[in-house]
């Protein structure tokens, strides 16, 4: 890929191409070695094949899960609603706590760039790099078992994505209305309300709905660490070896997610 002024001879071209091919080959070779190494470590060294047994044994374990525990269904309604509500409130709370983060994190509106901008970026990274399970653990130990810990975990976990995308939306606004509001003597607040908000509000709502859909998935597992909802039921079925019950809970989660997807599809349509 060199752009020297000397015209390339056929030899040069061949040599360059060969060099490129060598690099490519080396790259794939390293990838391949990594695969082998990883397989060796995880699948061969670490796995107790005796315990797993033959394919037939695996098939037998899987077949435990086939079936539905109808007796469980009435008991699922409460936790399903709870999971749904945790997702909803968590998302809204996430949006609220993320307002300062998106304001600080957008280069064109951040109040004091050397401090507020990195602050917002750090908050976003923290929020996104810690898994919701871990957040839930932290909040359970802070506010005790229950839905509230789940809500906080969802809210904090959502902050990163919502703030990052919204800050991007704010950075990409059309500056013309902002100029107009400034020119007529508008204050910073008015510039925000009239120049920026109308442009980014629909975008932010779209992002929030998208995140809400993911949060339904998330809130369904927070019960694993005691933060309420369907996850708790799932865990209980697992611990009592009630495998059809496990399948039933998974189907309930599935149903909830489908509801979420349909709602999100139509509300995003209504936004435009």
């Amino acid at each position, binding site marked *: 890929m060199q752009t020297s002024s000397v015209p390339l001879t056929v030899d040069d071209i061949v040599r360059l191409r060969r060099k490129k091919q060598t690099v490519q080959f080396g790259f794939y070779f390293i990838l391949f070695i*990594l*695969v082998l*190494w*990883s*397989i060796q*470590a*995880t*699948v061969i060294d*670490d*796995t*107790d094949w005796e*315990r*797993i047994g033959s394919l037939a044994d*695996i098939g037998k*374990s*899987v077949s435990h*899960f086939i079936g539905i525990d109808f007796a469980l269904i009435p008991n699922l309604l409460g936790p399903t*609603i*709870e999971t749904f*509500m*945790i997702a*909803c*409130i968590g998302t*809204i709370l996430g949006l609220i706590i993320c307002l300062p983060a998106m304001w600080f994190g957008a280069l064109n509106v951040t109040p004091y760039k050397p401090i507020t901008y990195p602050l917002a970026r750090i908050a976003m*990274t*923290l929020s*996104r*790099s*810690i*898994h919701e*399970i*871990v957040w839930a*653990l932290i*909040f359970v*130990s*802070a*506010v005790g078992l*229950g*839905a*509230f810990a789940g*809500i906080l975990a969802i809210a904090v976990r959502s902050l990163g994505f919502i703030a990052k995308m919204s800050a991007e939306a704010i950075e990409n606004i059309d500056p013309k209305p902002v100029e107009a509001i400034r020119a007529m003597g508008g204050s910073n607040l008015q510039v925000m309300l009239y120049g920026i908000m109308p442009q980014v509000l629909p975008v932010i709502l779209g992002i929030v709905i998208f995140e809400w859909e993911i949060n339904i*998935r*998330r809130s*369904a*597992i927070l019960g*694993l660490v005691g933060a*309420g909802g369907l996850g708790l039921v*799932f865990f209980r079925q*697992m611990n009592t070896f009630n*495998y059809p019950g*496990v399948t039933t809970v*998974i189907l309930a*989660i*599935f149903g909830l*997610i*489908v509801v979420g997807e349909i709602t999100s599809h139509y509300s995003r349509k209504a936004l435009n």
Partner: protein
Amino acid sequence: MANKTGEHNLPVHSSVGGDGVHREWSRFKFPRSLINYGILLGILLFFSYSVYYLNIPLERIMGMFGRLGDLMADRYFPPDMDYIVDLGYLDAIIETIQMAYLGSLFGLLISIVLGWFAAHNVSPSPKYIYPIARLLTMGCRSVHEMIWAILFVTILGFGLLPGVLALTMFSIGFSGKLFAEEIESIQMGQVEAIRAMGGNHLQVFVYGVFPQVRVAFTGIAIYTWDVAFRAATVVGFVGAGGMGWYLKRNVMQIETERVAAILISIVGLVVISEFVSAWARIRVSKAK
């Protein structure tokens, strides 16, 4: 009204704004505004009811945040950094990386095929294979990675293999839909050219579709690695190996200072991985 000028004595012209004719206008528009307010009220009611239903102790919330701060300072500080430079823990980090690597690799390979089948425009059989492939990717998506991990641990026992498989399912769910969408947005001209030459479905995919989406796929693959690594740090929590296992053990033993150290290591690794993938993405988009 001549004195709206503030400190400055500027003359004000106001001949427009007083022709005496009264005009009617209201921000409230009959059916529309009513519907909007109705929807808003409904949402508000739902949220209030949820707060009530979930027994959220609103009056104690403020105190709780104070407690949160105390708790952090009290229990989680100072993080036990010696613990995470221990050889056993470093081993777990390597295992986590290997798990994420294999999981996302397998997932991506399967996703390429599934994405092909689940793309309406080039699916070998839009009537039968297409809906099945769609359902499969959606199924992988909607089951959370932790649930996958639990299921595989139940079937295969503790270890890294269930972790790899859980991450595989997760990666399929994550990248399958993106791949399919990418394929659905290609230009059909090249596909038709291959079809016209009498190419079979595989040839159409390999020569007509894949070259068009290769770069986009690479980007998606890097992204998938990123999220898979994040998930890999915690699947151990339910017994699927890696750092999550250490996390679980120390949480159970209330070794909070070690937990803090582990969290720091997770954040650190995720940030590093994010830098690496950002670099890789830039490389890929340049090579385009």
